[in-house]
């Protein structure tokens, strides 16, 4: 309960969960939730660039720590799982960008340093490509790609079925295929990148 003290009334007004609520949500995660989060953390860990390795456990631990200490505010309207996913996505992106920028820095003598550590757009794009490799699993699977695209646009399951002219059963089959393929891919051995 003592963690409550870190939360200001302003934050409560914006729908941000208190530290105690965040802690309760984390403590309430099930083994299934942890397995999913670890799989996703493994996926982000594939974004290692030139010797910089992100350990999946570290990424997840950091996301939870930041949520508990308020550095990453958890809005109650978002599920805690989705929130942790987005924190890991953001952290992995920053780590990969910094790593890529370092790899591109010229070897400098003396104290001279580059003016900015922010990577140029091409580095940012290359980094994002490495983080986005899940989509490549569905190349050639037009049904799945259409469903993924429409879900991304915010359509509900019934709207997607209507748009694509597919039955509920067909839709469920596609969703199950997506889950199976993503889970299998993320559980594979050493990262490929």
């Amino acid at each position, binding site marked *: 309960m*003592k*963690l409550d003290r870190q939360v200001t009334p302003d934050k409560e007004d914006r729908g941000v969960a208190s*530290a105690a609520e965040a*802690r309760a949500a*984390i*403590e309430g*995660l*099930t*083994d*299934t*939730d*942890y*397995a*999913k*989060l*670890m*799989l*996703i*953390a493994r*996926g982000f860990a594939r974004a290692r660039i030139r010797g910089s390795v992100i350990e*999946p*456990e*570290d990424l*997840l*631990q*950091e996301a*939870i*720590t930041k949520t*508990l*200490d308020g550095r990453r505010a958890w809005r109650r309207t978002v*599920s805690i*799982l*989705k929130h942790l*996913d*987005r924190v890991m*996505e953001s952290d992995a992106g920053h780590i990969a960008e910094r790593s890529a920028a370092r790899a591109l820095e010229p070897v400098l003598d003396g104290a001279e340093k580059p003016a900015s550590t922010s990577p140029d757009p091409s580095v940012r*794009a290359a980094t*994002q490509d490495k*983080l*986005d490799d*899940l*989509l490549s699993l569905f190349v050639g699977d037009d049904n799945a790609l259409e469903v*993924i*695209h429409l*879900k*991304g646009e915010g359509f509900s399951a019934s709207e997607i079925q209507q748009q694509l002219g597919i039955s509920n059963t067909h839709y469920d089959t596609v*969703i*199950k295929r*997506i*889950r*199976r393929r*993503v*889970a*299998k891919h*993320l*559980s*594979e*051995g050493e990262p490929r990148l």
Partner: protein
Amino acid sequence: MRPSKHDRTKMNRVLRDTLLEASESELQEALRGAPEDFDAQAARGRGAAHRALATAEDSADVQDLHRGLGSLIKMLRRRDCVSVDQLAKQARVAADELRRIELNAALEPNPRTIYQLEQYFKLPPRSLVMLSGAVRADSDVRAEAVRFAASSENIAELSQEERKLLNRFVKFLREHTDR
């Protein structure tokens, strides 16, 4: 046609969200035969969460001690009728850091500042070191620090009650550092 960068990011989020909605049996099935099965993944995730929860607990404990530290410095300063700037000059520490120690429990105080303040106020050796979180403090020290911080009030001159409170807390710290 290849989706734009923005669309790819969005679609990858959809893929991860779809995984997050999977049932236990779907996940068990998908991970059958994988190098690390469902139980192994869950154990690793749970371990990471336990470590994060323990870190958060430690951090909250230290902040409790810092609240006691800030209140103690402020009260000692008021007892001696010295301003932050005067104290900074006499104890040879930075005034900005002193202000932050009094106000911000999240601040990690500089060990030299803590040593100088301990010497200046003639406090029991290592008493402020303990409140700075640099050495491990018992749970009763943390509880006493929280009580002390909550009881001290921000008025110009120490009341008789506050003086008693201050003396009692310093005595408590002496007993604890003498152990």
